[in-house]
């Protein structure tokens, strides 16, 4: 009787190779199913987070771009991925000074949207010719302490400006399209704003 009892206890305490293999196979099946489910949930959560970030960035950018246009009196120059805005002729000189202009520019190398504005105090405040290219005229000061860059957005892959007039300096309305990227998500921002800082007509 004691022999039978010991035999039964030995069987009860261990697993045969087949049992072990079956258990491992079952566990690996369940484990892989759980792992793939967790991966899918993680991907979904990340995509959701990216999309929320994209929406927030869109709203912030629309607000900033529209405000910059509304507080301007004239579009000085517009080109591929940039626009020069003239805030106002503060010194009544009839020509734009460095302290009066804003440049909004897309940098395709760093995939950023930047704005350039002169600080409150300037070493010199040169006046520019309305008839000449502003990219050339401001090339010397762009990025310097007198015309520093401020990053408005990163992960930007395109910036297009459209005007309601073929001649930039006669335009009253500015439209913009931005392409933003966040992870695998990509979306466009569209908007338009009118120049509101016009002289009384």
């Amino acid at each position, binding site marked *: *009787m004691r022999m039978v*009892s010991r035999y*039964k206890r030995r069987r*009860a305490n261990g697993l045969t190779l087949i049992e072990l293999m079956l258990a491992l196979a079952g566990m690996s099946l369940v484990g892989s199913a759980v792992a793939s*489910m967790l991966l899918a*949930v993680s991907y*979904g*959560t990340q*995509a*959701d987070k990216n*999309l*929320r970030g*994209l*929406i927030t960035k*869109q*709203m912030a950018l*629309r607000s900033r771009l*529209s405000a910059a246009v509304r507080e301007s009196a004239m579009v000085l120059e517009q080109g591929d991925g940039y626009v020069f805005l003239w805030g106002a002729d503060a010194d009544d000189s009839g020509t734009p000074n460095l302290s009066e202009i804003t440049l909004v520019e897309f940098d395709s190398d760093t995939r950023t949207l930047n704005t350039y504005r002169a600080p409150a105090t300037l070493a010199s405040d040169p006046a520019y010719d309305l008839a000449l290219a502003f990219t050339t005229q401001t090339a010397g000061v762009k990025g310097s302490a007198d015309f520093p860059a401020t990053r408005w957005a990163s992960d930007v892959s395109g910036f297009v400006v*459209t*005007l*309601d007039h073929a001649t930039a300096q006669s335009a*009253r*309305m500015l*439209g913009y*399209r931005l392409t933003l990227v966040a992870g695998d998500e990509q*979306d*466009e*921002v*569209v*908007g*338009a*704003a*009118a120049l509101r800082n016009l002289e009384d007509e």
Partner: protein
Amino acid sequence: MGIPAPRARCFRRSAGFTLLEVLIASMILAFATLGLVQAVSAAQAQTYDALRRARATALADALLEEVLSKPYADPQAETAVGPDTGESGRDDFDNVDDYHGFAEAAGALSDHAGALYPTRFQRFERSVTVQPQTVSVAGLGGDRSGMLVTVTVTEPAESAGGSAGRSWTVTRFVPEAP
């Protein structure tokens, strides 16, 4: 003499799970998985909804901005609300009330320069109404006459993923110059 009763019960329990136990465990696992998946997909649906709302609002704001960029009074002194004689399209509109009745169908939405918006924005429809209105503003010393501009962006039911179509509206009162 057999094995004592408690030890027999112990051996029987260690032999494995009963079918009922396995079924209950499977059901618990299935419900937990379902709950997790539903929570994630509900969050994503809400985010996409917010994205659609942001696009619709951007379209409405852009058109309202275009309307408000026009003069209040008609340069030809026309007083009727709506497009004036000879104004056949958006390019001809030269004051605020000319936009009354303006509408764009899905797939044909364009900006002020006539360039079509990206495909993602083409599921919506846009329309404008302009109505003469008098409002009483106590702080401005009485009644002010002007025009109420309403831009409505609609998402047709078929493009809203089977759900009922929705619309977003922005309004602005434009006072007449004193």
